[in-house]
């Protein structure tokens, strides 16, 4: 379940029943090309505020399955533990999300409840729940997602900006490269061959970043190059408009708005190019 956060939440966390046992069914894989298996572990919830990460930590200290077999500790990625770095993304009970903000009280409020954990499927598995998301960073380079400043010497401030423009850019700029939008996208597929990345669909995350930099006074300078890249194969026209991306984005980034805006810009760009020859 993906908890939607509003200023006035309608859901409250159920009270913690300390001491209850929760089962974790975890998809394991020893490395690229190796087969996947499932292990199930039991974790006793002995602290308030337990989340998937705190349970994985408990399992790591003593990884014994429900059958009593000692296994290797489960491998997973994490960093900030407060849903701002994007590292800990995985598929929890069938839904892609961050494991640090996945509270056990929400997912498994009762004795014996089970939670399943799987790695994302659109990125190559490194080991267990850890995947390789280098392609997302590659796509940022592909779209020149930066402001081409003249260097770091003191040259005064940046352009003035209205609060409205700032708010729009800020919202886009909170993207933490987590990959949820890509995992959920029917048009974005696993591609292990890096040489094919430049012609495969870039996905909502990178398109939205292109919009972010095209909006900035100085960032605009590279807009033609960004739009060129988004005109070609794997560009914005590969989006099938299913809107899955926007539904799973933990930062509530208006991805479909970005896709529409970039789509329009690409069309205009194509027309201009056509007339200029």
């Amino acid at each position, binding site marked *: 379940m993906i*908890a939607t*956060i509003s*200023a*006035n*939440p309608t859901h409250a*966390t159920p009270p913690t029943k300390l001491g209850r046992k929760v089962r974790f069914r975890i998809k394991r894989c*020893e490395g690229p090309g190796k087969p996947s298996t499932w292990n199930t572990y039991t974790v006793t919830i002995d602290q*308030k*505020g337990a*989340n998937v*990460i*705190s349970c994985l930590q408990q399992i*790591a*200290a*003593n990884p*014994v399955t429900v059958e009593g077999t*000692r296994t*290797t*500790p489960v*491998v997973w*990625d*994490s*960093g*900030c*533990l*407060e*849903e*701002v*770095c*994007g*590292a800990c993304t995985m598929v929890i009970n069938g839904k892609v999300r961050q494991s640090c*903000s996945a*509270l056990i009280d929400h997912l498994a409020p009762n004795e014996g409840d089970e939670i399943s954990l799987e790695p994302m499927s659109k990125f190559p598995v490194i080991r267990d729940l*850890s995947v390789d998301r280098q392609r997302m*960073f590659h796509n940022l*380079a592909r779209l*020149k997602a*930066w*402001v*081409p*400043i003249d*260097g*770091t010497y*003191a*040259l005064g*401030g*940046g352009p*003035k*900006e*209205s*609060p409205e423009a*700032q708010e729009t*850019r*800020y919202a886009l*700029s*909170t993207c*933490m*490269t987590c990959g949820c939008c890509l995992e959920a996208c029917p048009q974005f597929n696993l591609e292990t061959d890096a040489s094919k990345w430049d012609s495969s669909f870039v996905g909502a995350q990178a398109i939205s970043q292109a919009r972010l930099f095209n909006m900035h006074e*100085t*960032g605009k300078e590279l807009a033609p190059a960004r739009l060129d890249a988004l005109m070609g194969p794997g560009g914005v026209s590969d989006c099938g408009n299913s809107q899955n991306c926007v539904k799973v984005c933990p930062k509530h980034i208006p991805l479909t708005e970005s896709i529409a805006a970039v789509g329009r810009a690409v069309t205009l760009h194509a027309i201009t190019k056509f007339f200029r020859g």
Partner: protein
Amino acid sequence: MAAAGNQRVIVVGGGLAGLAATVRIAESGLAVDLFSVVPVKRSHSVCAQGGINACNEVARQQGYSEYEHFDETIYGGDFLADQHPVLEMANWAPKIIDLLDRMGVPFNRTSEGYRDLRLFGGSLFKRTHFAGATTGQQLIYALDEQTRRYESEGKVTKYEFWEFLWPVIEDGRAVGIVAQDMRTMQIRAFRADAVVMATGGCGLVYGKSTNSIICTGAAAARCYQAGVHYGNPEMIQVHPTAIPGADKLRLMSESARGEGGRVWVPRKKGDMRAPRDIPDAERYYFLEERYPKYGNIVPRDIATREIFSICVDDGLGVSGENQVYLDLTHRDPDYLKRKLEGILEIYEKFAGEDPYRNPMKIFPAVHYSMGGLWTTFTPGSYNPAQARHKHKSGSPAPIDAKVGQGMQLGAINNAMTNIEGLYAFGEVNFAYHGANRLGANALLSCLFDGLFCGVSVANYVRNAAPSKAPAESLPAAAYERVTQQEEAKVKNLLSTVNQGNYDEKTNAYVIHRELGVEMTTACTVVKSDARLRQCQSKLGELKGRYANVKLGDAAGWTNQSLSFARAVGDMLLVADAIALGSLERKESRGAHYRTDYKDRDDANFMKTTLASLKPETRDVSVQFVPIDASLILPEARTYGKVAADATSAAKQPVAAGV
């Protein structure tokens, strides 16, 4: 600019400090190899919420100045920081904000389109710039983008998911590092003409803290074992307001107080009424009552100790537990949403309660390390005949800010450790914050190190290093020796897998958990001789157990247990230094508060604690070395505290520095 031969610089760490250094050094034409255990964009710096300080035009016209920012930082740090570097940092701050602005950081705006400002602890002026409630994330993204740009141009090579293991030091000079690929587990040496450590803080030594899970301090500990001095290890900042959690203590940013948040407890012990039902007169706004001038925005160490004493000594914690209210419910929800949405969302998400309608429940948590690798500097041109008295807030500054007043720009020893060519930038640098860091000054010090001291690194490589053999021409022996040392360590650890059954005593995770609990109890808000000695003997026990640590994973691919177990050994040594520094510093200053030495003792301890490791015994020793206090005279640090109200006057602890 032409590339300078084959000279290279290694930057270890891709947080704000490491990325700023990378961009600056790459821009100067030197090749940079950038190492990080996570993709740099996911570094701990993303966690910073509140903002970044700098003098600005609005504050300036109200009487604020770079000089006052400098003065606040020295006073806030309880006169422990070397003063010249702090002056330079404050002078540079406005330039740094301008640069970030040009890079596209979406700083909040006023209706006219200028950068908006907020109030933060330790100042009476609005001087904190912010981007929503995720300033650190926004700043590091801007630097990440510039780094990616240089990477695309071939000027920077990233080694992400590579762990720094040891510096290569030849003839007293850093000439490279040995690192391990965290996927293939390959260990290899990298050559460089200078090495910049920008590996952040050490919150994990305390088990749970506000830090990211990667902030083990192991990288710094490895340099320290290789002979680098560690400065002020005992200066650990405990943030007053965090949300207790099972895996981490999540920060509730100081900006919640800056935007009007009020800290209170029910006046009556054991009052179990819902906060809403407690009338104003029956609420004890203890910070406002005790510090009428600064109220809720007193600096962190003071707020922390007051909250701690309200709960632990007075037993006034909410619901009888160790927690107090941080209340924003009197503020307009739309305003809050605009200014604080990000952090309030964190509370809602992790505490499961609505902070717009219910006061938040918070308690102090370990947050930041003022201490770190000890570094040097060349003082700048401002050298008054006599140190001045504390600056009167809002009065004209004695000097106009100019480059080079505090530190000499480009001097090769700026931010260099005692090992030539080995630099420390950002949180891992012990400089600037003294005994207590002011809110929103850390991001500044990270960027300042990268941008200002980055020039020193480039100069060192260009002008000083060439008189010695360039790293690329050095014999392989030095590199092989360190590589073999690290391979042997790994082999040793891996050989313990499957030796006997699961045993709590030799389990790295259990040792780490016990370490965290011990350090949190003995080395945070209040310390004492007896408790610290007890802590030292516990550390001795843990080290003994660690010597027989057993791993649960023999894999030669993405072996996280190996990495973690190795880091636990390093954390134990950082803990040793923290404990000994705490014990030897027989005074109270800033974040360091001794119940048995409640006063600040400038004659004996207005000095840097210099910790070093005796290589033979691996024991820590500390000495106290003089600081540069040539600009501002020390004075009592009271923040205008008045006597507490009658009900708690008797139990009122003496504020540090009084």
